[in-house]
């Protein structure tokens, strides 16, 4: 960081004992799983839930809940990092790799792109580079710690992109729109970073 740090007089940190190389700058470890949402929690019945991938030409592929469940499951164990400063280690998820979904999308003639926008129940959106949701780095997750993902944590399903700040792991996700140009999502329009790499501390617009 280019800033010259200002030493806080009399600050003697407790250090929670986290392995320093697992904590991105400015983060601290929590054992809890805080809930972070801008509004009420939506409750979409599984009977009407579906997941869509669409490209900019309007070509789309859609899965019902049961169709999605029939795809091969992954069970990633990952560290997650929230822009509000907490990090949580070794979180255990169950979901479908976005690679699996994109393979099926390509077979339907849906073109790859440079960016995606995840869209969600309630109108929440977030933008991500295409490369950040491919190559085994992103999932549509519906299980957490051996149980169905609770609604307040994004259930029935949320995006899981653990190498980016956790607002990119959009709760209540219903699909991905593939774009050739970046288009800011909800928090990004409100001043949060377009990529959000915690290791580069890309919290807000204008951060490196």
């Amino acid at each position, binding site marked *: 960081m280019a800033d010259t740090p*200002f*030493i806080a007089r009399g*600050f003697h940190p407790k250090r929670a004992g986290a392995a320093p190389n697992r904590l991105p700058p400015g983060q601290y470890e929590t054992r809890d799983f805080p809930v972070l*949402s801008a509004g009420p929690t939506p409750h979409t019945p599984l009977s009407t839930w579906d997941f869509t991938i669409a490209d900019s030409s309007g070509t789309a592929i859609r899965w019902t809940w049961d169709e999605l469940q029939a795809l091969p499951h992954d069970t990633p164990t990952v560290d997650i990092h*929230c822009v509000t*400063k907490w990090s949580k280690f070794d979180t255990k998820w169950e979901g479908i790799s976005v690679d699996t979904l994109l393979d099926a999308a390509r077979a339907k003639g849906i073109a790859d792109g440079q960016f995606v926008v995840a869209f969600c129940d*309630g109108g*929440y959106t977030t933008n991500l580079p295409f490369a950040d949701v491919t190559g085994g780095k992103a999932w549509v997750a519906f299980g957490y710690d051996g149980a169905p993902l609770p609604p307040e944590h994004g259930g029935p399903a949320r995006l899981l992109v653990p190498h980016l700040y956790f607002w990119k792991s959009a*709760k*209540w996700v219903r699909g991905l729109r593939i774009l050739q140009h970046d288009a800011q999502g909800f928090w990004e329009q409100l001043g949060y970073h377009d990529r959000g790499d915690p290791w580069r501390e890309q919290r807000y617009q204008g951060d490196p």
Partner: protein
Amino acid sequence: MAITIAAIRGVSSGIRATRDVSEARAVAAPARLEWRVAHVVSVRDETPHARTLVLDVPQWPGHRAGQHVDVRLVAEDGYQAQRSYSIASAPESPNVELTVERLDDGEVSPYLCDVLQPGDGLEVRGPIGGYFVWEIAHGGPLLLVAGGSGIVPLMAMLRHHAAAPREISARTAVRLLYSARTADDIIYANELGRLAEAREVDVQYTLTRTAPADWTGHRRRIDRPLLEHVAWPAAEGARAFVCGPTPLVEHVATLLVELGYDPLQVRTERFGPTGP
């Protein structure tokens, strides 16, 4: 209070709907939010567990009621800790005030509450957040629901309301429902009492643990009858801001939607338990 912005929101099922954030777009600054060393002008104990820091922030760009700042503490050896704190002062205030609740096992809040003194410097950057904000121009009626130190960003809204010209503030009715553990835990009690002297401001408390013998407020966790009693009827089209611990916010936000509030008019900010 240590706050949580970040992630996500939602309601209903219009998957193509895009939330209107145009109100806030104008303040999304493309320039980097720089760390600034604020000068601690004074400190003020609000309750046995909460202290207000009055800061003079050089080149402060101004803020809107409901926004927060990041605070960074750097130790001699370079170790750093960061947290987010809501701004308690009105945009009209010359200083930036933060009210911090002391978490005894915390790393940052005990420093801010017990070690930091007037004359010290404190690194901050902000303001941050553009969704949990209210401006007098947005109008009302306004419903504010606070749990514990969740009162802090709502206090900025109340102070902003009180700072408006009388003919404008009188047109904007405000109701606050504030849930605290005990009477001693009520932050800003005296000032809230003064604000409630305005005819358009109604302040109601509920205590969840113990109440004094002469207590005339409510004595229970917020439930549906209490919320129905305090909240504007849904048909009034009120804007609701709910801030506090996650269980309170989940409960109140869900109840408001059940009472007919438009989910897009129920804005929430949740905190804790977020560890040290």
